[in-house]
């Protein structure tokens, strides 16, 4: 069956960079206590 597909975003690279910047701006506002370690463990 012939399928119509959506047109690609006009400028995918710009969209990707805008999305990245929006995430960076959002996380910049997030405050985390200095004592909080990341959610992974190094095991010796």
């Amino acid at each position: 069956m012939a399928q119509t597909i959506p047109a690609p975003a006009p400028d995918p690279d710009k969209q990707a960079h805008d999305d990245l910047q929006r995430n960076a701006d959002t996380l910049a506002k997030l405050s985390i206590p200095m004592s909080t370690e990341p959610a992974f463990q190094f095991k010796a």
Partner: protein
Amino acid sequence: MTDDVFFAPISDINARLKKREFSTVELVKAFGARLETLGPKYNALALPLTKIALERAKSVDGELKRERYRGPTQGVPFGAKDLLSFAGHPTTWGAKPYATQVFNETATVLQKLDDTGSLLLGKLSMVELAGGGGYRMAGASLTGPGLNPWDITRWAGGSSSGPASAVAAGLVPFALGSETSGSIITPAAFCGVTGLRPTYGLVSRHGAMPLSWTLDKIGPLCRTAEDCGLVLQVISGADSNDPGSAGKSFYYAPQFSRKLTEMKIGFAAVDVEWADPEIRPALDAAIKTLRETGANLVEVKLPDFPWSALISTVIGAESASVFESLFATGQVDELADPSQAAHLKANLAIPATQYLKAMRARILVQKAFRELFEDVDLLVAPARCGVAPKISEPLDGTASPQPQPSAPGMHSLIPAANLAGLPGISFPCGFASGLPVGLQLVGPAFRENALLVVATEFQKRTDWHKRHPLAV
């Protein structure tokens, strides 16, 4: 053998094999023919493996004849998302740059199913690279858009498109999919099957394509919640080959779970504002059914975090490292969806400090969920806000206006639960415009039995999961 076997639950098939109503060879032949005929019509089949399964079926029949029983899935054929390696055969990850990739090891989960007498009937299609870059089109796959068996102008959901559509269409009794953030829950909801996302670390990912090491999970898509429990019991367990393994097993033991009348299930009334109006009656009826089970539904609030930014940062940074060679060779531009390629490349610029901040936030996310689960046993929410979208529409929300509800409710439960590593299940709770509507439950880590008990009770009281589409 009658056609009802194509939509029978695992326990029923296994019982009929033991009674010699039909043989494993006959069963594999019947499902194999169906998968190879109908699978391509849904763009669900990546690689048929019927011949190999038939050889294996002969030995399984011998075991059944000698009453050498290996488990609840013995003799039952299944399909696997094409991100799980099967030694000596192509594993494409749904992406053109990996179209000829062959591994010499079989994924742990496939080996476990083989050890217990289940038969891999075929590799099933998926969104390229499990959609890690953020894709805009349903056609973001080596095999074309995953078509929904309920309406082939609609998407099957992603990234486990083939597993969901193959189970829905009765091409396999169950399938294995994977979820990093929504890739089991979403296609299960859109195709009207029951999909279980296990707790992070409960099921080995050895032999699976990595997308995001701290988020990836393998789980079953089945006809019923009970089937999900049976499959999870087989595929779970410690694996020293998986650094993320929790070292735990799962035993499907619904009889030992807390009674529903003693359970508190958290929900957010505002969720209905997020849902498309056409699916609201199904959601309302589903909540009513849940109340009728005796469970106590109480209003709760999801912890407040920037869910989308957190999960995008973690997936983006980890996948940029995973697929580094794809960027070096330029093959990233061979991906079917330009948007996905663009996002994957852009993710190389995520600063280490941003990734680490997201990973530190996950500790706070886990703490917030632990506190939430001091008050309730489980959470319930719509699996998706609407039915399966048309494959001709972009998936980034630009096709229709977004609602602006008064509060976030559980709208972000999929990324939130994935960031916390929590198990979830999606099961059909009604229909709208002839398409399935899904409900999701989320529970504390390693409480899969509680999810399965509630979903099973729901399925005893409804027949949505028994409905199936007409073959194309």
